[in-house]
């Protein structure tokens, strides 16, 4: 008997469509797996078993009725708790939204339902997607299935760990500075950040509006591409959504899987090539570059001089936007309300609520952002950071005149032990050193497993021009065909 939880999404959908298994069986297998291992992983904040089985039954009924099913029908998916789900708790990893059941579905959740996928539940994350280890979740850290004493990356550590622990074959993440790619890298899974505006933000609880990008997570590049195609595309409810179809990422992934990169020119980012990365990460990256060259890719080195300013610019722009986006959490209309004893003033109740509801990293960023936007400081901080953003965009534009895509390690280090970096925010922020430039530019980026360092996964990042998401899938799939996928030790 096949272990349904070890299959790819493509395989599951094929078995369901062919009648070799049912969506209910597949769903139950994953629910059983969650029940068996999630107390050790803590990938899920909420498991919606009833909803999942009902959705699975609906798929089976449609199949029985002879309806044609989509390419992901009957495939379970785990959704990062940053997306609103109608009637299903949505906490964003924060105490301030504990118990909140949104009255509406995010556009992506609607599209997941329309595609016949089965939502298993909501995954753990750093509070409000602020963090790189999922240790800042108000509901306890998620553990890396490769080594449960280590972090699974963040903020989307729950989604990545759910994949690596075979609790789900597909997951949704959101990437503001690397929150899809970096967890993908440290859990040995695939994580793609689409072009900004290529996936709808409607229903994505905002951290930093100009950077937040929801996207697919999977164990294979092709699965990620299929999920990307299912959730992407224009949404009239999101003004920043691009009114163009998603590039054919599925075809690109299939093309890449043939292992031929002849005619593809890849640029290794000088600033990110080795220095600053752990030796094991640097070594795995170098081996991958050689592998890509063997597949026929032309490799050149490209300098992007402003990438070194990306981290500071990001830590002004993202907190500034978050300080405004998170203002609505005041205890008036939803979520936590603290200290409303009939004697305290409105301001006191708001303050007590926010003090009790937000964790230390969220407070730190709200304060940073409030300061950066203050009268008299705006030009020096937020204004200056926007200029840096323009320079980084120019670096990308210039690079893409020379090469088809850029490559770098996804993150400078492999999964670190839980607690190792929480006392020094800057050490934590370094986890996103290589992923942040893509967010500031708005282009797509993907992390694909490229090797191991002391038994822990290393990811390679492919960055492509805006609305050329297909290119990164081709390169990632080609690398995957050369180096294979990586399986963690049994839990």
């Amino acid at each position: 008997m096949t272990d349904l939880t070890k299959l790819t999404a493509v395989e599951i959908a094929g078995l369901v469509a062919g009648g070799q298994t049912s969506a209910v069986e597949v769903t139950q297998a994953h629910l059983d797996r969650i029940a068996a291992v999630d107390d050790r992983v803590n990938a899920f904040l909420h498991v919606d078993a009833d909803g999942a089985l009902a959705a699975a039954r609906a798929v089976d009924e449609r199949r029985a009725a002879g309806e044609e099913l989509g390419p992901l029908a009957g495939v379970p998916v785990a959704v990062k708790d940053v997306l609103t789900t109608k009637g299903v708790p949505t906490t964003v990893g924060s105490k301030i939204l504990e118990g909140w059941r949104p009255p509406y579905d995010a556009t992506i959740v609607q599209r997941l339902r329309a595609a016949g996928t089965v939502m298993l539940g909501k995954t753990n994350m750093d509070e409000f997607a602020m963090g790189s280890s999922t240790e800042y979740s108000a509901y306890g850290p998620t553990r890396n299935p490769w080594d449960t004493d280590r972090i699974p990356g963040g903020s989307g550590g729950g989604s990545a760990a759910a994949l690596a622990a075979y609790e789900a074959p597909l997951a949704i993440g959101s990437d503001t500075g690397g929150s899809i790619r970096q967890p993908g890298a440290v859990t040995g899974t695939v994580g793609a950040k689409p072009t900004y505006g290529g996936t709808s933000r409607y229903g994505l609880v905002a951290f930093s509006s100009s950077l937040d990008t929801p996207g697919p997570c999977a164990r294979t590049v092709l699965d990620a591409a299929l999920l990307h195609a299912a959730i992407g595309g224009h949404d009239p409810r999101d003004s920043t959504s691009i009114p163009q179809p998603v590039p054919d990422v599925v075809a690109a992934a299939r093309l890449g899987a043939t292992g031929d990169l002849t005619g593809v020119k890849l640029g290794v980012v000088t600033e990110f090539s080795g220095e600053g990365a752990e030796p094991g990460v640097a070594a795995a990256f170098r081996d991958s570059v050689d592998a890509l060259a063997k597949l026929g890719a032309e490799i050149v080195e490209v300098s992007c001089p402003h990438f070194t300013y990306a981290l500071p610019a990001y830590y002004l722009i993202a907190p500034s936007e978050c300080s405004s986006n998170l203002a609505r959490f005041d205890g008036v209309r939803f979520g936590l309300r603290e200290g409303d004893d009939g004697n305290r003033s409105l301001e006191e109740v708001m303050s007590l609520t926010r003090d009790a509801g937000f964790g230390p990293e969220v407070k730190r960023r709200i304060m940073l952002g409030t300061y950066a936007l203050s009268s008299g400081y705006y030009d020096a901080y937020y204004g200056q950071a926007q200029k840096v953003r323009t320079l980084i965009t120019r670096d990308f534009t210039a690079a893409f005149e020379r090469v088809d895509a850029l490559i770098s390690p996804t993150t400078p280090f492999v999964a670190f032990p839980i607690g190792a970096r929480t006392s020094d925010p800057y050490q934590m922020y370094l986890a996103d050193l290589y992923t942040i430039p893509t967010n500031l530019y708005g282009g797509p980026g993907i992390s694909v497993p490229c090797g191991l360092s002391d038994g822990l996964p290393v990811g390679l990042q492919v960055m492509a021009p805006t609305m050329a998401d297909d290119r990164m899938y081709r390169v990632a799939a080609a690398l995957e065909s050369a180096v294979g996928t990586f399986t963690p030790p049994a839990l």
Partner: protein
Amino acid sequence: MSTTTLPAYDDVVARYEPVIGLETHVELGTNTKMFCGCPTDFGGEPNTRVCPVCLGLPGSLPVANKAAIEATIRIGLALNCSIASWCRFARKNYFYPDMPKNFQISQYDEPLCVDGYLDVEVGGELVRIGIERVHLEEDTGKTLHVGGATGRIHGATESLVDYNRAGIPLVEIVTRPVPGTGALAPEVARAYVTELRDVIRSLGVSDVRMEEGSLRCDVNTSLNLPGQEWGTRTETKNVNSLRSVERAVRSEMLRQASVLDAGGRITQETRHFHEDTGDTTPGRSKETATDYRYFPEPDLVPLAPDAAWVAELKAALPELPRLHRRRLQEQWGLSDADMQSVLNAGAVELIEATVAAGATPAAARKWWLGELSRRANETGVELADVGATPVQVAELQGLVDAGKLNDKLARSVLEGVVAGEGSPTEIMTARGLEVVSDTGALTAAVDEAIAANPDIAEKIRSGKVAAAGALVGAVMKTTRGQADAKTVRELILSRLGA
């Protein structure tokens, strides 16, 4: 705090020069809200016209309403503004429970319309009011404080919030400071708001009703000594009628003069106008003003109105009210003073519509400025709400012109119209008020009067035609006024061969 005696107004304007400025908010009459599809109608059960977007629920996103952008551009064009070819919305951050997101989507340093003007007439002179900017933003909800004595937050036991209004498109129109109007400053302020209201109404983009809050006005006032720098200004809010605009400026001028006279200094602050007392009291001080931390709204794309579209909107603008009025004045053959009284009565559009329905300008003006204005004053309503429509007034005048009603009867019919009894013709018939035009009956009444007054009849026969008045009176009495006096007179003279 109004214990000190205020100086006399004439004395104040003889010694100080006022500078005024106005910030006006206009709720647009679009079908849907600024950033979502919720309806915008006034009223409705609290919190029924809401959705995740206008409630600011986590994850929701705004999408700008094109009709609101178009209306704002049209307002800007009517106010002679330049329309930005590229601009952005901005977030104005501050905490208040009636603002769902705790920031308002507004515009900051990149407004949609800039650098315009509006000419207003005061005392026959044109005053040009500079328009600094016209921008688009979203309205807030409404907070109701219950359980206290004052309806204010202090002492209230509960605060209730209604978000039906939250997200309704709001246009803010900001003037440049207006110096040099001297004693006329209060009148200029009122004339500006009146003219602005008429302009916006002529565009059909808002019902601009101050009493319902769809037109809201903040008045800035300062005083300075002649030749010196402008003084510190105060911003007066809660100015809810045209009359209050004028009173608020005047009251603030008097208050500031008394402070300055006493050697004090004016605090830059927000003040609240009180309709009942006509004075202002301080609100929050602007010196400790909130830092709104404006920054470009990242959830919306920049606004880049196409030049051809703007040109199209400009070409389709209606005639401005001031020019329209001038044309009417010429058509109606009115002196400036007569036109002014029409304006003061708020009767321009009513007379225009009455003329359009068939009455002569003179007759239309007579009814609206006479009988109907008197009734409006008595009952304390706007002339437009007095109960008669232009079509009814034109019909009434038609009956008079046809000889079916005389002036006195027509006034009785009008009473019926105002009371809602029906059309003038219906009322005339129902009340039996038609002029006696049956010549047989009238001749009998005339003959009766002649027979009863032989001496008067003799005077008339001998050529004293003026004596006929007495016989006319007698006939009118027997017909209970329902005869046409002119016809009666002619009949008497012809019966007596005079």
